[in-house]
């Protein structure tokens, strides 16, 4: 990342970047009919005459789609238009059975917002031009002899979030997508599963020299991972710079990024402006959002990740790094809030979540929402560690057991007792063990006394081994130091 920054700083060109992000809405049913929005499923099993646009069918707008769009708008500091409308955007392609996509042209639901992103050491505000609702297209499966159409995804509700061209580097693009994804996840507007295509972006890029007019813009379509968006942006900026440095001419074009090969190629050169013969969708009545509705939706907004991070730093004294990791996922962050909120030592809770809990979720292939215990169990575990009743390695073991079905519903205390994981903090017993270890390892003891202070860790290790991992390592360390004093 540092290298890319340096390269960008060294270039005589400035990049101007704007993003169009499509997010599939987390509704149960499609946007204009009751078909399921579940990902996958047998081809064409979530399709009805409505989403195929058969003659005689009428679309009926999903209330939740409007609510989610307003919610995203409020979370992104937008103005919510009291009156908006849907329009038909016409184009002919087999993934769109009706021959038009229902979208919004001049009266979107939300306008004029902003999103703060990390940029270098500071923050940067990226303008949100608009957010509108529209329908997704179906999927084409290209065979050797023909093309097959799967309409399962067709007519699923989307919001399109159009940024202002306020970004200037691949890092900006990454930070913007990351921040946007967080907000959509926290608000529950989209599940943002990029691997399932439920969050994807088109990237518009032009470059120009300082003081000169903006350059010719290209558009890269359908980037479906944060890292691909970043790599594609870096590549396209370099490509445009190279063309201009060699005295070439850039064309306004639509490009496709090939993430495997790490390069882009031209899908089509734009000779004319796109002509979609938009007109107002006559079958869907105008969307009127009242101030009362806006207030009710605003009340459902959760605390945003940025505010959470600040609270974690101020109230719990977590580092920026820890606060950042914890808030990447709302479910993990909620777990932390429950445990730390119940008075358990915050740093221990954070370490347990970022360490063993995250690792075990990964190993079991569980999404964080499905962690098999709640914040109160985590608080109990963190308290046991905090009181010195168990060691951190024993805490790891207890966490592992919490994931085992046979221990389902058991409290950490019960597991500690059952597995005899309690830490030995009995001073006289530990002193006896230490004395034995020092006697058995005269050479290491002599090394320590001779000034090799790090030799003590070998002795601590021996005591831990002798105690089967149950000795309190802090006490062992202190006792050994006392015993080894010259």
């Amino acid at each position, binding site marked *: 990342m540092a290298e890319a920054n340096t390269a960008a700083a060294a270039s005589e060109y400035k990049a101007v970047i704007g993003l169009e992000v499509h997010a599939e809405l987390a509704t149960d049913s499609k946007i204009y009919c*009751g078909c399921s929005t579940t990902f996958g499923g*047998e081809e*064409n099993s979530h399709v009805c005459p409505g989403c195929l646009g058969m003659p005689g069918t009428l679309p009926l707008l999903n209330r939740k789609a409007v609510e989610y769009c307003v919610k995203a708008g409020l979370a992104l500091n937008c103005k919510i238009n009291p009156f908006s409308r849907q329009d038909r955007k016409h184009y*002919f392609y087999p993934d769109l059975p009706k021959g038009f996509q229902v979208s919004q042209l001049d009266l979107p639901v939300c306008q004029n917002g902003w999103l703060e992103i990390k940029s270098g050491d500071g923050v940067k505000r990226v303008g949100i031009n608009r957010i509108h609702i529209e329908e997704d297209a179906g999927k084409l499966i290209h065979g050797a002899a023909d093309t097959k159409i799967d309409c399962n995804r067709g007519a699923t509700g989307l919001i399109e979030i159009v940024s202002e061209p306020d970004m200037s580097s691949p890092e900006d693009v990454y930070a913007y997508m990351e921040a946007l994804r967080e907000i959509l996840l926290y608000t529950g507007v989209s599940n943002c599963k990029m691997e399932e295509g439920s969050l994807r972006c088109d990237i518009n890029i032009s470059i120009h020299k300082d003081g000169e007019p903006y350059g010719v813009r290209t558009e890269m379509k359908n980037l479906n991972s944060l890292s691909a968006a970043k790599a594609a942006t870096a590549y396209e900026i370099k490509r445009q710079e190279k063309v201009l440095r060699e005295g070439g001419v850039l064309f306004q074009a639509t490009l496709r990024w090939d993430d495997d090969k790490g390069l882009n190629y031209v899908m089509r050169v734009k000779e004319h402006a796109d002509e979609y013969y938009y007109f107002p969708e006559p079958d869907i009545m*105008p969307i009127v959002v009242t101030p009362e509705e806006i207030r009710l939706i605003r009340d459902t907004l959760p605390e945003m990740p940025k505010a959470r991070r600040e609270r974690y730093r101020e109230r719990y004294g977590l580092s920026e790094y820890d606060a950042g990791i914890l808030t990447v996922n709302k479910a993990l962050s909620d777990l932390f809030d429950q445990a730390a909120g119940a008075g358990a030592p915050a740093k221990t809770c954070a370490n347990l979540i970022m360490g063993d809990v995250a690792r075990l979720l990964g190993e079991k292939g569980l999404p964080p929402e499905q962690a098999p215990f709640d914040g109160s169990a985590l608080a109990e575990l963190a308290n046991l560690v905090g009181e010195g009743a168990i060691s951190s390695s024993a805490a790891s073991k207890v966490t592992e057991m919490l994931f085992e079905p046979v221990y389902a519903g058991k409290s950490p205390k019960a597991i500690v007792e059952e597995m005899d994981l309690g830490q030995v903090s009995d001073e006289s017993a530990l002193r006896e063990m230490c004395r034995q270890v020092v006697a058995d390892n005269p050479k290491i003891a002599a090394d320590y006394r001779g000034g090799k202070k790090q030799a003590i860790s070998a002795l601590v290790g021996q005591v831990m081994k002798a105690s089967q991992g149950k000795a309190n390592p802090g006490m062992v360390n202190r006792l050994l130091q006392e015993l080894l004093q010259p």
Partner: protein
Amino acid sequence: MAITKDTIRQIAGLAKIGLTDEEAERFARDLSKIDTFVGQVAKLETEGVAPATHSVQMKSVYRDDVMIPSLPREELLANAPEHDGSGFLTPKVLDEG
């Protein structure tokens, strides 16, 4: 306003329809007549009249986010000119994204 053959060709291009020269000429002629006929509306006095996009005065007509069963696939595909039992088939298209 007369609709020219060029306009017809441009629209046919967008709709991915191939036209012979005679067809383009005929459509230009026919559509020009239709356009002139419909164009009479433009002569009406509309000063002070708000633009109307819908023929009824309703707003915010919604349905609740409730899933209902989709059409069985056999029925869905029954009228398709070509299908393979699970999907609609078209002649091979290039992926334009």
